[in-house]
């Protein structure tokens, strides 16, 4: 089974007014078809950058890919220019984001926005460009337009409308007919996130990148959305790359988990192995941070120290300053991802 996504030696740098930040440092990973891969790490570890960089959504003025390749279905996305990469968005790869309420346009109705996504999919399938010189384009049976002009929210034509309703029902929105006439601000957070999922899936992507999709939601809604995503994944045969800072989220739905620290991959294992037997000290530290109910008489054990300054990373292992098991070699040499048994890998001198 060929990998859907294969990232090799991928590095991304940001230029800021105070120096160059290495956001991703030599990252390598594989994503298999029909797999839910969770990328876990604290803020600033580069996980969001990783997600955004796959479909080229990094801010062009400040971010540069300094090395590596991102192979999607054997094609290197890094080498594509912005026009070519756009062709992957809206058909092959879809992305949903953290704050659903601000991630949808406030002036167009929800149904219309999903319909727009479907139109893009159909136009791409036919090989048409989504835009044209004439500011409009036709789609299948009736004259549907993705007009460039700003306009007031309009009614969706019937065949599109049915498909929109189907997708809304797919994400378990019961009164789909009413919802599609609503504006995003009229819906709750959980509902809006489902709409975003529906919109992303309506483009029939092979890969769905979800950047902290549940962070802005309350815990119960979070659980619902996650469960939904897992079910849908199998139903529509989409792989999911889930970026999150929350280990609990990863443990609920992931097949495989990658732990990132300071722009590098610390550990890569299937979900059971990672949680039952963490290898990297950072992973153990993360797991120990989470308070478990029945042990709450004990003190919380945070990980000492703070993440390193990515403008000036330390030589050697970036986690070494905070690592309770650091050795001399850790401060002088960078560890690499080495394969371990059970199809896992870890980047730590303890295991080399």
């Amino acid at each position, binding site marked *: 089974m060929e990998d859907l996504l294969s990232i090799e030696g991928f590095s991304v740098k940001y230029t800021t007014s105070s120096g160059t930040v290495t956001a991703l440092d030599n990252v390598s990973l594989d994503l298999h078809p029909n797999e839910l891969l969770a990328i876990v790490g604290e803020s600033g570890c580069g996980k969001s950058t990783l997600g955004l960089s796959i*479909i080229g*959504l990094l801010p062009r003025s400040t971010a540069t890919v300094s090395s590596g390749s991102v192979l999607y279905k054997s094609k290197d996305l890094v080498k594509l220019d912005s026009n070519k990469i*756009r*062709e992957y*968005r*809206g*058909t092959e790869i*879809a*992305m949903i*984001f953290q*704050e659903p309420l*601000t*991630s*949808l*346009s*406030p*002036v*167009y109705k929800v149904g219309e926005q999903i319909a*727009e*996504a479907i139109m*893009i999919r159909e136009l*791409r399938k036919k090989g048409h*460009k*989504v*835009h044209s010189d004439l500011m409009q384009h036709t789609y299948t049976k009736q004259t549907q337009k*993705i*007009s*460039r*002009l*700003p*306009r*007031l*929210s309009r009614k969706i034509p019937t065949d599109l409308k049915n498909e929109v309703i189907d997708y809304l029902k797919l994400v378990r929105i019961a009164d789909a007919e009413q919802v599609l006439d609503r*504006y995003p*601000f*009229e819906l709750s957070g959980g509902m809006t996130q489902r709409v*975003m999922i529906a*919109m992303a899936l309506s*483009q029939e992507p092979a890969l769905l990148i979800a950047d902290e999709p549940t962070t802005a939601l309350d815990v119960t809604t979070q659980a619902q959305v996650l469960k939904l995503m897992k079910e849908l994944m199998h139903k529509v045969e989409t792989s999911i790359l889930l970026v999150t800072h929350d280990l609990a989220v990863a443990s609920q739905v992931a097949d495989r988990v990658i732990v990132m620290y300071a722009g590098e991959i610390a550990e890569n294992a299937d979900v059971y192995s990672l949680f039952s037997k963490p290898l990297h000290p950072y992973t153990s530290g993360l797991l120990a941070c989470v308070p478990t109910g029945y042990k709450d008489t004990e003190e919380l054990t945070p990980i000492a120290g703070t993440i390193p300054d990515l403008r000036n990373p330390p030589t050697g292992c970036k986690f070494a300053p905070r690592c309770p098991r650091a050795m001399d070699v850790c401060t002088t040499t960078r560890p690499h991802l080495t394969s371990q048994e059970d199809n896992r890998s870890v980047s730590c001198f303890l295991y080399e």
Partner: protein
Amino acid sequence: MNIATYILRRGIFAIFVLLSVMTITFVLSHSLGGDPIYSWLGKAAGLHPQLAAAYAAKYHLNDPVYVQYYYYLVNLSQGNLGYSPSRNFVPVAQVISQTLPYTLQIAFFAIMMTLIVGILLGVTSARYNHTSIDNGIRAAYMAGYGSPPFFVGLVLLIIFTYHFGLLPSGGAFDPNLTPPTWITGIPMIDSLLEGNFQYFGSAIIHVILPSLALAICFFGIVTRVLRSSMLEVMHANYIRTARAKGLDEGTIFYKHGLRHALIPIVSLSSLIVTWIITGTIFVENIFSYPGMGRYVVQALNGQDYPGILGTTIVYAIVIVASNLAADILYAVVDPQVRLG
């Protein structure tokens, strides 16, 4: 709150504002030094004892103040604004009905030009921001905004009329042409309805410069706001989603970005309308355009108090009505206002 309630609320507010204006003019009519009769007949009241007597009766000028106020409002609502000394005691309302259409003509074209130019340049500024195009546009609108409308009008006259001889120096139309018959009251519309295209063409030529002067002064307000609005919008999350969906940059910029960025412009248009209508007073004077503004200036020079007070009220009515229209448009354009 749905749109009907919203309109009702804004409507009531508008009426309240008009009442305030009328109260102000009423109070002022009594402080014009001496007999309130001066505010209706001007200082020459003594020369027309019959008119003066008729007035005193009509406005109950010998009764206590609150009675006067009541009758004042009654008279106003009937369209009675007094008689205009600077126009041979023709009723003020009549003068206004003859001059207001011309003012509206200028206002209409000025507002259209301001919005179109303002939006085009605002979008261009945003697209090419921090380049010399952006800076050039900024210099242009700062120069425009800083110049009083009458000054801009004079400069335009020098350039287009006296230097190039392209456009006329005054009036609303070529006096050799027959004006259209009264259908809607607005000459340019009437001439179109009648098929009198010669008149229409002449009217257009005569309205260009005055409207252009106003547009030059005020397009900057639109451009500046739209530019910053667009720059802000393009960083919004939903733009990122639109990109992730696979839309091309052009569609994103116009359909998603501009659509949202235009909303503040709608609420800004109340301000634009107010300034432009105020500005017509000056450009009409420069271009000898027979609108209400020219009448105001004549009234001021001739101490024609009825004229001054009457036109003030009418200006207020026009401005309040347009602000109300802008409010309604705002609710249409921004769903959060009417549903949120």
